[in-house]
């Protein structure tokens, strides 16, 4: 009587092992790439009720971040500009542009322009804008080149490990206090960010918290 299992079954174990190996690697790789904020958050670009372009306002018109985000230097919360802030100019400039419909509507009714939120840290995380911008961390470091964004999108993962990168080595990000809101700033030729950063770090006694209490309360 012949074998119950045909000859080719002898190869199955080997094939299974190889398969598992491949799948395992694929899954691990997939998770590390697709399931981390690097992928899930970066690049999030919702359409806003009014097509506000930072590119035009900052790049072309050279407006300062603080004109609209007026409380960023004093408050934990970098405020969304008020409709009034928009209308301060747009009553004269392009008062009829269809792009501004939503803003004019809100101006009339008193209902807010409900901008879509782009950047969000979890509710148990207490991020404070004021302390960062006042101690040499630029908007750029967390929000990227907003000045070039026609529509705002998330540029950095803003995950905990990402925060820690800076909190552990702030010298890689610290800037001259005058350049905080200068999205184009680069260390002068010959200067290196690390060198400048270390000077500021020493001079200002920058040692950001890396224990839980710094952000979680």
């Amino acid at each position: 009587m012949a074998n119950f299992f045909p000859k080719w079954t002898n190869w199955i174990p080997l094939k299974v092992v190889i398969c598992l190996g491949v799948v395992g690697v694929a899954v691990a790789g997939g998770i590390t790439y697709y399931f981390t904020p690097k992928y899930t958050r970066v690049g999030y670009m919702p359409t806003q009720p009014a097509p506000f372009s930072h590119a035009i306002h900052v790049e072309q018109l050279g407006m300062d971040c603080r004109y609209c985000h007026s409380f960023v230097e004093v408050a934990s919360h970098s405020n969304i500009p008020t409709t009034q802030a928009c209308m301060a100019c747009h009553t004269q400039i392009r008062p009829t542009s269809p792009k501004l419909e939503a803003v004019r509507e809100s101006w009339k009714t008193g209902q807010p322009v409900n901008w879509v939120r782009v950047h969000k840290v979890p509710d148990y995380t207490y991020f404070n804008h004021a302390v960062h911008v006042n101690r040499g961390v630029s908007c750029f470091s967390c929000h990227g080149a907003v000045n070039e964004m026609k529509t705002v999108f998330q540029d950095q993962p803003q995950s905990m490990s990402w925060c820690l990168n800076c909190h552990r080595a702030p010298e890689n990000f610290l800037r001259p206090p005058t350049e905080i809101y200068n999205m184009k700033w680069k260390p002068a030729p010959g200067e290196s960010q690390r060198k400048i950063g270390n000077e500021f770090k020493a001079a200002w006694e920058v040692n950001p918290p890396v224990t839980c209490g710094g952000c979680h309360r």
Partner: protein
Amino acid sequence: MSEATATIEEKLSDEEKQVVRPPLVLNKRTMGWISSYISSIVEDKTPTWWWVSMGVTVPLTLMCLACLAYLIATGVGVWGNNHPVGWAWDITNFVFWIGIGHAGTLISAILFLTRQKWRTSINRAAEAMTLFAVVCAGIYPALHVGRVWMAWFLAPVPNANGIWQNFRSPLLWDVFAVSTYFTVSVLFWYTGLIPDLATIRDRCTSKIKKFIYGVMALGWRGGNRQWRHYEKAYLILAGLSTPLVLSVHSVVSFDFATSVIPGWHTTIFPPYFVAGAIFGGFAMVLTIMIPACAIYKPLHDLVTINHVDKMCKIILLTGSIVGYAYLMELFIAWYGGNPFERAAFWYRAFGPYWWAYAAMMFCNVIAPQMFWFKYFRTNLLWVWIIVQFPNMGMWFERFVIIATTLSRDFTPSAWGMFHPTWVDICTFIGTFGLFTTLFLIFIRFLPMICMFEVKAVLPEADPHHGEAHH
């Protein structure tokens, strides 16, 4: 029963009478008989009693699962745990089950290393018991946490939060110890099964069985070139499992021993937990094997009174070790002169939980003393009754250590009692359902006695067998 209770001598043939030691297999059973009888348990059509018992145990299992679902959906509050008593029945039952598991590994590993041939007829079932007990045990640490869905935080994997585990925490040691223990036990058990699976493969007729057992047997051929590696591997596994089983319960005891709480903070815990585990585990083996043999009477030729007798002796020994530990705890607490330690043990014995302590003392220290008498070691009915005490007593021991200690530790203002809820109770009962269900499935579909090892201890297995006569 009657057959079993008859003394060994009556059963011995003349030839056997010349042998110094009583034989491990009675009635001159042949290899063929062994294979065919043990396999028949798997091959014959499902007996009614099996369905009946499943009819009882499966609903219990479902009840357990229902309770756990309710627990996860609602919160740990559905248990009786409270502020002084953060751990109660959950960890008690965890330690209880994990302890039971240990006897299996011990029988298969340590007795193997010490060349105790009599283990062969019970190690398979004992190992199975280990696995199922660890399954039941695993439920508790896994689900006692407040946020089960976050339990993956325990796994040291790189993550976007850049935060890691605290490897100094005994709980994390537990995670590694218990999972290692389970994995190694599975490997050990399955390795032991391979040749027997081959036997069934070669006997069975239906295509499905041929396929399933064929795959499970991995194409075992029983060639000596396989046996030599196989034996080596088995020996190594035994060698690994022995320190493992000792470490696992030591680590479990570290949960308490490394804390600062009076009544927990003691160096005596590891040895005494291990002794207790063996104690309770053997009791559970007997609790299961005696009915099994009662159902499959011929098994008495394999699991002989001789085995039972030996196991009772071990229970007596470990029970006394545990008893010694209890007294030593009290002595050290007094001798150490630390008022907190003194109070802790005083309250254990005479505090609001005096009844639990009394139950523990009676079940674990007093009751096993019966085994000094051969009559109680060899009368299966008595044995079965007596071993129920260690089963209960070991549960009470863990309850006393965990709940009593926490209910009264350092700060009297925070003292409080623990009262179990119906969820506590149903979950615990349910785990017995789960345990038994798994065990029933095991004896129905797998050889519950290690055939090839039993054959190997038959006289004719010796390559020089009978040569003396030639």
